């Protein structure tokens, strides 16, 4: 955490309200995001208990597994979830626009431009917290290797038809969420704490209720008081007034409310199975339905507050103006979405359990590149972020005090003007270090020449401008800073270059396991009598 955000936190403590940690919104928000508030059963590996899901804040769809240990009920839940999520995704997969992409021609080996489809927009999934992101990944993993009756008629417990497909999509969302700056799958707590600094620690910021309490405390209450209420306040029955954002439930809810309700449901089900005639069965079916309805009411009572909070969070985020580079990063998300859509329609197998060496290295390299890109773009979009970089000596702002025309010493001299900048910042400039400024959205490179004596205490820096001045002997109008201009230079590059290209998978060196060989279709997880998903 930089000193600037620490100061913001301290100010939040004294003012009793969260302070801005960003002046623009750094993440894309879709017009119609799909919000998912999932709950799981304690102690089971991602066994869903229920979820609220939908794109309309007033009418979420409630999905409930009345007995989470029952495989058929879980499959029914996942099938219902697929019925909501897949049509939403399909809606974006259909609308495309033409785009160009560089590809290597397989015959000539040359880089050529090819016309491809790019989805005009992409779906966006929003979960309340980081644990929700992990659950999306886990659900994806649990579903994508399942076999449907159509794929494998022999399978003892066939999955409903669209469940494996949902698994592949959730896996893709989960993987994409690991790419810095991506917005296909967002955790509300992460996005909110990126934009506001609260008067509590980052650990406590993971609690959606407490975080929102700091950002928008109710009238007449400080953030600290409201956050404490969100964390601890319980009603007469010992239940939290602000249920945890999940996917884990509060143990008091499990023990006092949910466990008895599930027990009633189990009893009603056993009774129904033992019914001897139609009339008795009708009665008992009524009891079973009532028991199921009770569980639905319970699950809704602990997911609905979180659901509303996620939408409140979206409202708050929409009050911020969007950052200039957000659209560009969202386009990368659209490429990622389109690529996965194409993989599925080409009939490729689901994502493997483990990536091969080249894919893993590729993913890692792209995440590093995106991290650097995100840091640079956020700084360029947001003076508050740039302030942090200036404090750490990675950027400086100042006024141009002098411009001297100079030329390079080549046969065809090009302009290399010397610009003197007066700054109060203390950049870490080495000999011939490069500094960049943004010129109409493009980076202009300068080279550090030296310091000059300053009469009034500030630092005077001399920079040589190297590019973006056109081809002529005289620099193009507006391409050279002028005296009196206030400029901000960064020592980091604005655009990220990719690293060296990785070999094709077939060329993987033996040190990294050698070529992956023939792709073996991943087998489904073996079913056992006691498995939970």
């Amino acid at each position, binding site marked *: *955490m*930089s*000193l*600037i955000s*620490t*100061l*913001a*936190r*301290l*100010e939040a*403590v*004294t003012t009793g309200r969260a302070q*801005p940690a960003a*002046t623009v919104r750094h993440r894309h928000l879709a017009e119609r995001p799909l919000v998912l508030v999932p709950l799981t*059963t*304690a*102690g*089971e*590996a991602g066994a869903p208990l229920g979820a609220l899901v939908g794109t309309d804040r007033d009418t979420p769809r409630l999905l409930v597994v009345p007995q989470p240990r029952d495989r058929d009920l879980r499959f029914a839940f996942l099938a219902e979830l697929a019925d909501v999520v897949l049509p939403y995704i399909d809606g974006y997969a259909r609308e495309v626009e033409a785009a160009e992409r560089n590809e290597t021609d397989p015959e000539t080996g040359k880089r050529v431009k090819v016309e491809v489809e790019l989805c005009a927009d992409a779906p966006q999934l929003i979960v309340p917290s980081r644990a929700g992101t992990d659950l999306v990944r*886990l659900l994806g*993993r*649990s579903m994508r290797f399942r076999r449907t009756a159509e794929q494998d008629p022999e399978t003892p417990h066939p999955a409903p038809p669209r469940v494996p497909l949902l698994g592949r999509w959730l896996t893709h969302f989960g993987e994409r969420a690991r790419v810095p700056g991506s917005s296909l799958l967002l955790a509300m707590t992460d996005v909110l704490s990126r934009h506001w600094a609260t008067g*509590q*620690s*980052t*650990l*406590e910021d993971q609690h959606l209720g407490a975080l929102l309490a700091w950002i928008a405390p109710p009238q007449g209450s400080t953030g*600290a008081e409201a956050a404490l209420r969100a*964390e*601890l306040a319980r009603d007469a029955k010992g239940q939290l007034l602000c249920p945890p954002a999940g996917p884990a*439930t*509060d*143990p*008091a809810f*499990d*023990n006092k409310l949910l*466990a008895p309700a599930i027990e009633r449901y189990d009893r009603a089900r056993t009774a129904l199975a033992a019914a001897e005639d139609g009339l008795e069965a009708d009665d008992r079916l009524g009891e079973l339905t009532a028991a199921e309805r009770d569980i639905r009411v319970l699950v809704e009572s602990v997911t609905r507050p979180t659901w509303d909070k996620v939408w409140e969070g979206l409202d708050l985020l929409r009050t911020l103006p969007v950052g200039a580079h957000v659209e560009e990063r969202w386009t990368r998300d659209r490429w990622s979405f389109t690529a996965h859509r194409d993989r599925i329609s080409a009939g490729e197998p689901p994502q493997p*359990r*483990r990536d091969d060496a080249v894919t893993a290295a590729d993913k890692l390299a792209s995440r590093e590149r995106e991290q650097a890109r995100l840091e640079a773009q956020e700084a*360029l979009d947001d*003076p*508050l972020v*740039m*302030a*942090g970089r*200036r*404090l750490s000596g990675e950027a400086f*702002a100042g006024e141009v005090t002098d411009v001297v025309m100079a030329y390079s010493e080549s046969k065809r001299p090009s302009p290399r003007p010397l610009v003197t900048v007066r700054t109060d910042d203390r950049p870490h400039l080495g000999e011939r270090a490069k500094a960049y*400024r*943004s010129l109409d959205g493009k980076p202009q490179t300068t080279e550090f020449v030296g310091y000059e004596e300053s009469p009034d205490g500030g630092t005077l820096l001399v920079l040589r401008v190297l590019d973006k001045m056109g081809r002529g002997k005289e620099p193009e109008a507006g391409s050279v800073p002028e005296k009196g201009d*206030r*400029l*901000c230079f960064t020592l980091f590059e604005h655009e990220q270059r990719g690293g060296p290209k990785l070999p094709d998978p077939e060329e993987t060196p033996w040190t990294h396991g050698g070529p992956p060989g023939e792709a073996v279709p991943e087998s489904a*997880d*073996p079913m*056992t009598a*006691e*498995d*939970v*998903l």
Partner: protein
Amino acid sequence: MPPPRTRGKALRQRLAELRGSEVPAKALDARALAALAANPGCRRRAILDGAGVNKTALASALGAPSAFGQSQFALTRGNAFEAKVKADGGAELLRLVHERLDRHAEPPVDAHVPDLTAIGPEGRTARTALALREATAAAGTWTLLDHPMLALDVAGSPAFLEPDAVVVHPDGRWTVVEIKSFPMLDGSADPAKVGAAARQAAVYVLALEEVAARLGAELETGAPGSGSARHDGPLPEVGHQVLLVCPKDFSNLPTASAVDIRKQRAVTARQLARLTRVEDIADTLPEGTCFSPDLPAADLAAAVESVPATYAPECLSACELAFHCRDRSRASGAVTALGRSVRAELGGLTTVADVLAAARGEAGDPEDPAVAALRRAAQLRAEALGAVAAGGAAG
């Protein structure tokens, strides 16, 4: 000058007084020890745990109840899984130990599973030591100790620990087994949970090492009373790899992984050694201090206040008293309440008011690098926010 304390009072009695008369002691478990070792500077936690105070009850009595609890679903599932792993005389568990840790040994068949029941924790500890000794002497056989009991001296008071299982290999080596109900998915598990399990296992290893050292010394000199000559079998040794047993993927089938806990062991040993001795802390308390949850909240708050705490946000996930300490820490304006890293970058400034005054230029020595950096940060922040408020973007 206060009169010198009567040293005659045995520590045990002193601790019982602190706990309050007729309040049963709460035993320290490995999880609490691992948490204690994570914050060794906290004298409050050391004395409360050392005296066996029920911190959950204390926190409720103070009006800042803890948010810990375990869902019965998790409990049922955890117990069912452990029972499954240990079924058939631990055949599956021993197979996993053999496969993951000791492939060259004879496969375990007809392993010995001694009965460890005895009266009281001391009795069970003695019974466990005896079983370990017999198992080590019986070279060439596998032994499974199901829920043995080990004693460890923590800051001057004994803690009794109950690992899920300890396996004695045919070559006399001892291995700690931890059975957890979080899944191992495609061969990897949640790193935070594995870390917690490793820290817990490290506490068991430390306790086992003490037993091994005593047994080794006995064997070296010839066991007292047995009259036998020097021992020529293997000397007991505690393995530095523990076996973590978890459900595989989404099933209830056990799978296992060897976890090297040398690092956790070293850290925990060092932290436990650093724990201020409970005795010394008890001596600093005013006479008559008592933490009984039956006392009025104001008295309790004063008693708790008489021992200093070192609160950090990490306490929230490890200590029942954390909400009370957080409240106090915030009330005193300590910057550590925002995180240890925040505290680390502010130099000698420890309170919110001091930091903000220094940042505004109202206090603090401008020569101090921390103060200078703060002023610079405050200035840059104000400039950035001002630029936005004025409607223009910098750069």
